[in-house]
């Protein structure tokens, strides 16, 4: 259900370099292609991109790996991507490329159990995301009740989360994606 891709390992297999820097577009594209190949036969619901042990990530590589994996899929299309092990510098690069392309992704911080949203999600979508991650699935009425919103506002947030592929939506109910 969850497939983990260790970027450090993929980097070592892709580039003959003793360093742990995820840099350059061709490197990012090569790593993305390897991930895509694995996903063809994986059937996972969540693809966890683990950046632990990667020292540095530049904007070009963040765009090639993270943004283009997200761009290749439409709303509701599996897998859902979740990032982990990002440090602040890498987070900044990912945040920048996602905002530029109007994308978003869930990211796990090591010190926290609940994931955060990186990218262009608005405040309502972020609050709705946090709510389903912490309190479980909800439809527009339940989500509205939790957050003190009208059902229409909750429905819009659910729609946004589905569009951004930050959570699963089936039969009008928002569900968190499986996380480790």
């Amino acid at each position: 259900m969850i497939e983990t891709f260790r970027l450090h390992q993929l980097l070592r297999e892709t580039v003959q370099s003793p360093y742990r820097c995820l840099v350059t577009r061709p490197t990012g594209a090569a790593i993305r292609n390897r991930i895509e190949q694995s996903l063809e036969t994986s059937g996972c619901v969540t693809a966890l991109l683990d950046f632990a042990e990667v020292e540095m990530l530049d904007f070009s590589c963040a765009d090639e790996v993270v943004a283009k994996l997200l761009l290749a899929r439409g709303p509701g299309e599996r897998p859902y991507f979740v990032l982990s092990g990002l440090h602040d510098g890498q987070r900044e690069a990912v945040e920048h490329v996602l905002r530029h392309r109007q994308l978003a992704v869930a990211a796990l911080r090591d010190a926290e159990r609940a994931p955060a949203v990186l990218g262009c999600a608005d405040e309502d979508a972020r609050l709705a995301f946090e709510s389903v991650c912490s309190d479980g699935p909800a439809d527009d009425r339940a989500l509205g009740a939790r957050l003190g919103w009208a059902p229409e506002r909750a429905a819009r947030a659910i729609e946004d989360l589905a569009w951004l592929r930050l959570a699963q939506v089936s039969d009008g109910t928002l569900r968190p994606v499986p996380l480790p």
Partner: protein
Amino acid sequence: MTRIIEVPASFDDRSFDQFAGCFGAWPPEERLLFDARGAQWASPYGLITMLTAAQALAEARREKPLFAVPQSDEVRRYWARTGFFRHAESLFEIHGRVPKASAGPSDALLDVTPIQAMEDVHDVVGRIAEPAARILNEQLGIGVNETMRFSMALSEACQNIVEHSGTGGWVAVQAYNWRRRLGRRVVVIAVSDAGIGFRPSLEPSHAKRYGDRWDDGAALEAALIQNVSRFRDPGRGQGIASIKRSVNHWDGKISIRSGTARLSIVPGWDDDAPLAERLPFFPGAQVQITIPAREPATE
């Protein structure tokens, strides 16, 4: 007949146009002699642009230029320690005694290094990450968490050579005191290539929009101010945008020269003109990123 290319006594981005003006029409027909005998100092920018010129001459199938080494022992030793002569030996016919490169460590963060492929970018970024973080933190007062931006800026600047120039280039990084210009310590990243330059690179996709205004200055403005790229992918052009953001954050300066123009984002501490046009032509593109210390240097 030989044309003399006078290497400025103090050779940096400011004296570069004097150097570029010696070449005349490009590529020069005559054999060139780079006369560095009177050189007293050269910044990373000065060192790598001399190599760029020689590389461009080789690619234009011109006769290998002559190079008269600095008369000063100290300058020769320093240039040798930065790796300049190691690369110059294959591009110039060198006249004068060149010290062995192993005469001691230079204070360069990154010696003069060729960038020809993406593997070189990996190598440069990987090698410099740790010492750069230390120097930016200890000498420039830049927080440890922010030093990652430096490596990112270096990576994006070097990638541009491989992706856009159509040939190879050079990079060097150095920390030193800018006593007269700033009164503070700085780290300078210099990147130069002998490739096609910004205007020809962007021309097919962007010239029409500018009409008669399209020239080297307009091409630099499109790339540096409007973040356009020759690629249609909307995710492109973000490399320079990210460098610019980091430079603003550091209150630093970025200057890009290509063809006959130079465009800079000029901080309050510098008096450079944002746009200089109708400069002497020089092949490829030259980038300098200057990061000043946050407070007066302790050295």
